[in-house]
């Protein structure tokens, strides 16, 4: 599984997508100061970019044929895609936190706050919903056709982000729950929908013909 994740990273080293990923997350530290909805969306887009670019290369070079000709289980191929997203998520959080902290120390007036734990859990929830819906479509329809489903899922994600930003305001708190309960609900929901999605994707991919 580790090899497949490394593969997704190596193939993007040649591309500008990693640079854009870093740039978006650094820029996000500024956007975060007064535009929460846009900030979450930028964060999401940076991860989307890496994950979908990796799929684009697999499609362009017909590399599923290569991957499935090597000694690797199809379940592992699917699971690694989800795990890659989790790793991209952790990297995005690390960049935003590091850049935010550095800028805050350099100029506290410009950057008064760094990304909060509540925001990170909301972002995890958003990213999980998107990829939980996207991957089964990707495995079922292939790269080209699944791009159309992106528009629909993006619309849903945009709506969720906008609602969360409106309801919660800057502190990313909603529903009157404590931080612990709220974040536990978000994490629990994310785990459940991802688990269901992984199960569906494995089912689809196991029967796929190349």
């Amino acid at each position, binding site marked *: 599984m580790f090899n497949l994740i490394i593969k997704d990273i190596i193939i993007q080293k040649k591309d500008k997508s990693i640079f854009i990923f870093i740039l978006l997350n650094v820029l996000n530290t500024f956007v975060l100061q007064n535009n929460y909805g846009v900030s979450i969306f930028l964060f999401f887009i940076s991860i989307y970019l890496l994950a979908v670019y990796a799929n684009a290369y697999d499609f362009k070079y017909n590399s599923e*044929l290569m991957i499935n*000709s090597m*000694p690797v289980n199809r379940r592992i191929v699917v699971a690694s895609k989800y795990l890659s997203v989790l790793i991209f998520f952790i990297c995005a959080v690390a960049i935003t936190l590091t850049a935010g902290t550095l800028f805050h120390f350099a100029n506290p007036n410009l950057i008064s706050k760094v990304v909060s734990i509540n925001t990170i859990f909301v972002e995890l929830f958003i990213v999980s919903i998107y990829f939980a819906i996207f991957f089964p479509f990707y495995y079922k329809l292939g790269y080209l056709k699944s791009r159309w489903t992106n528009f629909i899922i993006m619309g849903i994600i945009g709506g969720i982000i906008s609602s969360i930003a409106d309801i919660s305001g800057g502190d990313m708190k909603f529903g009157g729950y404590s931080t612990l309960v709220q974040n536990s609900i978000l994490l629990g929901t994310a785990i459940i929908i991802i688990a269901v999605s992984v199960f569906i994707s494995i089912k689809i991919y196991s029967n796929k013909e190349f």
Partner: protein
Amino acid sequence: MSIVLEVKNLKKSYGDFRLNNLNFKLEKGYVMGFIGENGAGKSTTIKLIMNLIKKDNGNINIFGMDSVKDERKIKEKIGFVYDENVFYGMLTINEMKKIVAGFYKKWDENKFQVYIKNFELNPNKVIDELSKGMKIKFALALALSHGAELIIMDEPTSGLDPAFRSELMDILYNIIQDENMTIFFSTHITTDLEKIADYITFINKGELVFSESKDEVLEKYAIIKGASKLLDGDIRKEFIGIRETASGFKALTSNKQKAEILFKDSCKIEKASLEDIMVYTVRGDIRV
């Protein structure tokens, strides 16, 4: 002698195409040429062997293991070379090698470096910039560097110029000097096989025509040339395919001995090439 690859009653349907009851086996240390015209089912069979598509029926055993249940163990010991490039074209040879090497327990870096040097491949060259021949050499270097005992090649010579095809055949000839190496090689360019194949499996429209040793095939089949007046109903039945022209006929038989008795001195009997066997079987009777 141990059987490396055994295909039993293999069936697969795709729309109008049907691979019907395919049976053949390949022993360790031999080269099998898998021939048939385009669309005969060669790539489908290879994809079934590699478990890239699902069979409708039948069994495929590789190294005595089931191709589906023991897929991972089997693929550790299989090297693959496909007709199309399946590697990330924007990466260099070295970068791509790093990705592939991680998947195999028995990856041998020294061996890979030797092959890269022998094949005159620049490890820093981007794959998209390699010629088709160089891409095939790279795929072969990868296939040979992880302790593979079975090399499966799907049309590796299609689209290559004759000089490079000859070079590739020389490379394969050297590889098979290792008695542990078995090669299964699909092609529609039958001349490639004359030099290196021990066995020939021929399929036509999804049906097995034969799977025999090359020498036996070339011994059994013959081209008969004679005057058209000899061709009556019974004689026609003796042939797999007949090509008739104003000056006479040329036909393929799968029973050279019988033809020798039947025609004695009235016809010319010549050795059939694999290409003759394929062309006459596929095209049947032709009147020019």
